[in-house]
């Protein structure tokens, strides 16, 4: 087996205890997982289990207490333009217009480009997220939350990273805006070999977007316990996805994990010997369900958050 594109090995994060002499706080340890090139992976876990901390380490903004992160055969040390980050709070520069926020990134990526090249490239990505026609000249404070998030995504895409890191990017948005930006994200991602790692709290969002969902147990001493393969073919559409036989199996598994097992498994050693998360795969529906034509269960359909 060749090494995956992104490989996280024995990652642990410990903080000194707040009161002197106390034991140090281990947020997570023994975190191991790999992500293949072009894969879309979501990570789910309860608040405080250390998802943002893991992402900061992947971004190179923070340093883990133990363990290594290897991307493309090279150890991650410090931030890099190969890894685009969409922060939870957008982190746009408030004194720059939407366009300038994007050109800021493009100029950093391509220092040799002329003004026109930088501008044209930035516009291309602002168009992708549907933010043109005057809105691009407004400052972030004059944009809605959804528009700001689009700028933030355009900025991350415009540097054409190899790995895109998203920290609860849609948490603060209303359901309608969230849906449309999710679709934009998928549209931009499809047809590239971009690898995406995204934190979310939303089970449905994870199933809709991801190839694979990583599940974290509760902290302290959190770890990535399972890797659930969604196994629903792309392109996916919101109304068809619920009719796919895997949908409820995956969804129930995730909900059950968050509700019960994340607590039960907390602090326990890995079941598998090599410290890798257990892979959860549901049988390929094409083999089993194609003839039986499993009926949809309308009673469960309303369960959307």
């Amino acid at each position, binding site marked *: 087996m060749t090494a995956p594109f992104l490989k996280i090995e024995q990652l642990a994060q410990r903080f000194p205890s707040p009161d002197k002499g106390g034991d140090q706080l281990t947020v997570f340890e023994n975190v191991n997982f790999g992500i293949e090139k072009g894969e879309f992976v979501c990570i789910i876990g309860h608040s405080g289990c250390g998802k943002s901390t893991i992402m900061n380490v992947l971004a190179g903004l923070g340093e883990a207490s133990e363990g290594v992160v290897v991307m493309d055969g090279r150890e991650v040390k410090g931030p890099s*333009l190969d890894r685009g980050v969409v*922060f939870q709070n957008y982190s746009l*520069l408030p004194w720059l217009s939407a366009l300038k926020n994007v050109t800021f990134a493009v100029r950093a990526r391509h220092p040799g480009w002329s003004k026109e090249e930088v501008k044209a490239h930035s516009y291309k990505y602002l168009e992708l997220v549907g933010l043109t026609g005057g809105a691009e000249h407004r400052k972030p*404070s004059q944009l809605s939350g959804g528009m700001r998030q689009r700028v933030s995504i355009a900025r991350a895409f415009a540097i054409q990273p190899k790995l895109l890191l998203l920290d609860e990017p849609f948490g603060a948005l209303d359901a309608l805006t969230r849906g449309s930006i999710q679709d934009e994200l998928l549209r931009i991602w499809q047809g590239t070999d971009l690898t995406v790692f995204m934190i979310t709290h939303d089970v449905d969002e994870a199933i809709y977007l991801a190839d694979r969902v990583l599940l974290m147990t509760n902290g302290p001493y959190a770890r990535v316990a399972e890797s659930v393969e969604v196994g629903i073919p792309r392109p996916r559409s919101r109304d068809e996805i619920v009719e796919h036989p895997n949908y409820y199996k995956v969804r129930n598994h995730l909900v059950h994990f968050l509700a019960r097992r994340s607590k039960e498994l907390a602090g326990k050693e890995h079941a598998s010997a090599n410290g890798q998360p257990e892979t959860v795969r549901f049988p390929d529906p094409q083999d089993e369900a194609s003839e039986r034509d499993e009926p949809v269960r309308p009673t469960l359909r309303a369960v959307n958050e």
Partner: protein
Amino acid sequence: MDWNLRLSLRVRSIILSLVILVVSLGVWELSISTGGSDRPLTEYEILTGGGAPKAGVPPPSDVIAKAYEELSQPFYDNGPNDKGIGIQIGYSLYRVLSGYFLAAAIAIPVGFLIGMSPLMYRALDPYIQILKPISPLAWMPLALFVIQDSQASAIFVIFICSIWPMLINTAFGVAGVRQDWVNVARTHELNNMRTALTVILPAAAPTILTGMRISIGIAWLVIVAAEMLVGGTGIGYYVWNEWNNLDLTSVIFSIIMIGFVGMVLDAFFGMIQRRVQYSE
């Protein structure tokens, strides 16, 4: 009652300002003329020389006449003790601005350093705390002795009084830049210089400009006192000189001019401050 509501707040405030001006000038004018120079002199006054022009507070009409006379030829120069008001203010502005920009050239880079490095902050803090409360005029004797030049000493005094607000505000603004924005710079692999210029400077600019605005105000306050001490030229020297001539009309006129120039300086920095202001 009704018209009062229909006029905008702006118009009403202007009307009220003018009323206050006219009333206060009127009271001033009347209170002085009833002091009675129209009344015939008594024999006693004639004997004691009371009829000679006496130093008294002049009425506003005199001040307005003086202002008209001075402002119609602001740049005349009849030797050391008789220069136009424009020339005197020019000297003062020259001293204020050179001391001020010298201070800015040092305070802003050093403030950056202090703001970005907790080590430098702690190391320099005691010096700043001791030097800051010293009255700028207390430096004057030392400056005159060391620099041996009154002109340069006045500039030094301006330098020393305007450096602290700029230094402290720059350090404060730089230290307070949100980590999120610094992280944006880091994920885009900006070097330290680019980060300082494209992220930290604009982020801290409103705070820095507040410091610069406070400094220019203090510098303009101090220059008057400094020029009274060093003499020769400048609006401060002019006030002092006219007081020695017992020409109170000129004294009042120059007081008003000092206020006016100070207002213009403040408005100018206020304008720049609004330019760099951003809302999150």
